């Protein structure tokens, strides 16, 4: 770990470390990790202000960042980290009581450093130094904390007999005047640093030969990262996610190619026992490789949950509500790509729960509930899917009001009979979310259409359970991975298409009298007592089918949003796991087509997007 003297000795002008984009990148990555864990520990500390382990951990995080920033001449970052460290040092020596105000300040510092990391990233990407917020004010605020604390500590020391002063006590106050002197330069320094850095980076990448000491750079980088990083390196390495995605793709292809070989008619005809055994062995290995490759991209959902902890804290304070956040099933693993896309909807749902679902403490008391409300995030597996639940114990959804509002907005016809879940689903309607009134009265309207769109993009579904006065639960059902889907291979004429299994309710061959038409154009099929619209795939895609009559064909009862419809195809060929591929840049947005997949015989099959298919047939 870097010491104070080393930091001071680095001269800003000719420090080769500060001009190395790779080093900066490492710094950003590592700092981000530290900042994330810092936030987590701060929230723990917020619950239990005496948690010494949390204080130590936060201290270590800031200390590491400070050390690295020192090497890279990022003075503003170093300064802020240093001041926070001073405060934390007082806290861990029990000279400062960790209050909410202290935690707020440290959280602010953490946010400030995060903004710095973003600015550095922008700079690396564009070569332009963006304007940085001025750390001066923040520094002053943190110093105030330290000064107050040390003043009271000194008072305590005076009361004690001489000689019992802890060794490190003089350190903290001594830092204050020194840094206070540097304060006036600070705002300028921050932006100047970045601008300079941008210039240096630009020039050093143009003329790499001029770099005076490349070997020294590498060496110093090693020592700069310190012992902790070394320990980590032994157990995990950082891999470019693009490479990982490519690997998963290729392994998918390998599994398909393997099955092609295994089921090759020529090979099957002359299969000898030894070849059979070897092929089985190959199958086992490819399966295992696929499993491992997929698992490499899986990350625990806990990281995502923990991000909401900060949101819950900030929002509940702002709204004057008391909210406890409970997390369960954080170890549940999910594809990295899904976790990333899940962040937004999760934030929306948590925000809605706190803003609208949960009552004020007074209201809760009147309703004979505990003053502190509870928001629960729960993750788990269920039949090959991941299920994530976001629940609150607030006032619940008011079905009557939602219905009234939906009728006013003409989202539904006046006499349409709706089940409770259909009514709740109305809040996902895009028109519904902009209605100010409903958000004031019953809550749950802001951005809910965004939530559903996101979830559907992830090929998942979202359901609402709610009881008046007892709370609301959003149930998200998501696939384990986005790379592979279970598909039904169906045929229409000579073409074959893949229907994602998750959207299929059932398949049937209808009786002749189950089909009816409206105005001789729109067709309907009676399925289990409900009339469902009939969509002929061959009409949508302009191909020649083998069967023109619905009762000769196969109907796939599919779900699009909260609506059901029947998709008419010639026949079902089989069920297959397929790797989803893009059709390429020029063919990106075709209504009704989600992508392509290589089928067992090497041909490309189109994967149907039922949402788009149904929407397109009804949109025009």
């Amino acid at each position: 770990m870097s010491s104070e003297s080393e930091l001071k000795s680095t001269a800003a002008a000719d420090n080769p470390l500060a001009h190395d984009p790779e080093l900066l990148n490492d710094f950003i990555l590592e700092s981000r990790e530290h900042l994330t864990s810092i936030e987590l520990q701060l929230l723990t500390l917020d619950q239990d202000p005496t948690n010494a382990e949390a204080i130590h951990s936060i201290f270590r995080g800031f200390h590491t960042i400070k050390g690295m920033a020192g090497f890279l001449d990022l003075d503003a970052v170093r300064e802020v980290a240093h001041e926070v460290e001073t405060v934390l040092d007082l806290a861990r020596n029990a000279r400062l009581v960790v209050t909410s105000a202290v935690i707020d300040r440290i959280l602010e510092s953490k946010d400030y450093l995060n903004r710095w990391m973003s600015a550095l990233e922008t700079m690396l990407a564009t070569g332009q130094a963006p304007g940085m917020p001025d750390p001066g004010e923040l520094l002053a605020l943190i110093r105030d904390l330290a000064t107050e604390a040390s003043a009271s500590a000194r008072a305590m020391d005076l009361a004690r007999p001489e000689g019992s002063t802890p060794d490190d006590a003089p350190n903290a106050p001594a830092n204050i005047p020194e840094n206070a002197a540097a304060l006036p330069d600070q705002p300028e320094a921050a932006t100047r640093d970045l601008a300079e850095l941008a210039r240096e980076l630009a020039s050093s990448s143009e003329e790499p030969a001029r770099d005076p000491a490349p070997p020294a750079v590498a060496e110093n980088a090693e020592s700069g990262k310190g012992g902790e990083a070394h320990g980590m390196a032994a157990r995990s390495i950082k891999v470019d996610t693009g490479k990982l995605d490519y690997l998963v793709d290729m392994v998918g292809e390998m599994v398909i190619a393997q099955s092609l070989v295994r089921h090759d008619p020529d090979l099957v005809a002359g299969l000898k026992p030894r070849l059979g055994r070897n092929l089985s062995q190959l199958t086992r290995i490819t399966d295992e490789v696929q499993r491992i490759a997929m698992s490499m991209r899986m990350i625990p959902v806990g990281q995502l949950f923990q991000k909401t902890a900060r949101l819950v804290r900030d929002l509940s304070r702002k709204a004057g509500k008391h909210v406890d956040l409970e997390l369960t099933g954080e170890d549940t693993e999910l594809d990295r790509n899904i976790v990333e896309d899940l962040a937004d909807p999760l934030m929306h749902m948590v925000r809605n729960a706190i803003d609208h679902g949960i009552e004020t403490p007074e209201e809760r008391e009147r309703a004979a509930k505990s003053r502190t409300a509870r928001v629960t995030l729960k993750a788990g597996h269920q039949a090959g899917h991941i299920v994530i639940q976001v629940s609150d114990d607030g006032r619940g959804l008011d079905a009557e009001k939602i219905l009234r509002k939906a009728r006013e907005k003409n989202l539904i016809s006046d006499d349409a009979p709706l089940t409770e879940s259909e009514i709740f689903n109305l809040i996902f309607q895009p028109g519904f979310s902009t209605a100010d009134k409903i958000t004031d009265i019953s809550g749950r309207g802001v951005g809910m259409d965004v939530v559903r769109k996101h979830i559907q993009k992830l090929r998942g579904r979202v359901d609402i359970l709610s009881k008046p006065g007892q709370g609301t639960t959003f149930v998200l059902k998501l696939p384990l991975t986005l790379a592979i889907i279970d598909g039904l291979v169906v045929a229409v004429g000579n073409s074959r298409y893949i229907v994602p299994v998750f959207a299929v309710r059932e398949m049937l061959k209808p009786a002749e009298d189950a089909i009816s038409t409206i105005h001789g154009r729109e067709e309907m099929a009676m399925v289990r007592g409900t009339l469902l619209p009939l969509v002929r795939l061959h009409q949508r895609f302009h191909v020649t089918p083998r069967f023109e009559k619905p009762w000769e064909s196969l109907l796939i009862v599919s779900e699009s949003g909260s609506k059901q419809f029947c998709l008419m195809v010639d026949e079902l060929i089989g069920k297959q796991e397929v790797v989803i591929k893009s059709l390429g840049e020029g063919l990106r947005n075709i209504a009704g087509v989600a992508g392509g997949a290589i089928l067992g015989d090497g041909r490309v099959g189109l994967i149907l997007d039922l949402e788009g298919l149904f929407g397109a047939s009804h949109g025009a």
Partner: protein
Amino acid sequence: METMVAMAPAVSTALKADQRAGKYLTFQLGNEEFAIQVLRVREIMGIQEITAVPQTPDYVKGVINLRGKVIPVVDLRLKFGLQELEYTPRTCIIVVQIESDAGKLMIGVIVDAVSEVLTLQAADIEDTPDFGSGVATPYLLGMAKLKGKVKILLDINMVLSSQELQVLPSF
């Protein structure tokens, strides 16, 4: 390799022609002989089964599997407004890499038959004659005359720019 027939140097276009000189792959389309820069060509394959994609212009025949990658295939006959022809064993798909706004992408191009690879000198290349107003020739790089036959040099990037592939709304 072809032996080069020296042409009268076109002084006014010498600079432009210099950039156009290089190796070309020639292919047939109807009665005409076309040429595209070899640098653009990734591979040449026989015609194979193509999966049709709905809501695309008729010259987009669909998509094929190129070693695990799905790429679109364009029929150059239809693209150039020629009559559609039954595919024969000589029909080829030339896979080219083009640059679009969205980055590099691979596209298959169906042609009647692939002929040969030629090295064209600057002196072999002439500018496209002016057909008068109303005849747009943005994707013609120029003409090359070899052994008395004219070869039309195509800027395949222009022919297959991503806008040209874009989907026509059909319902």
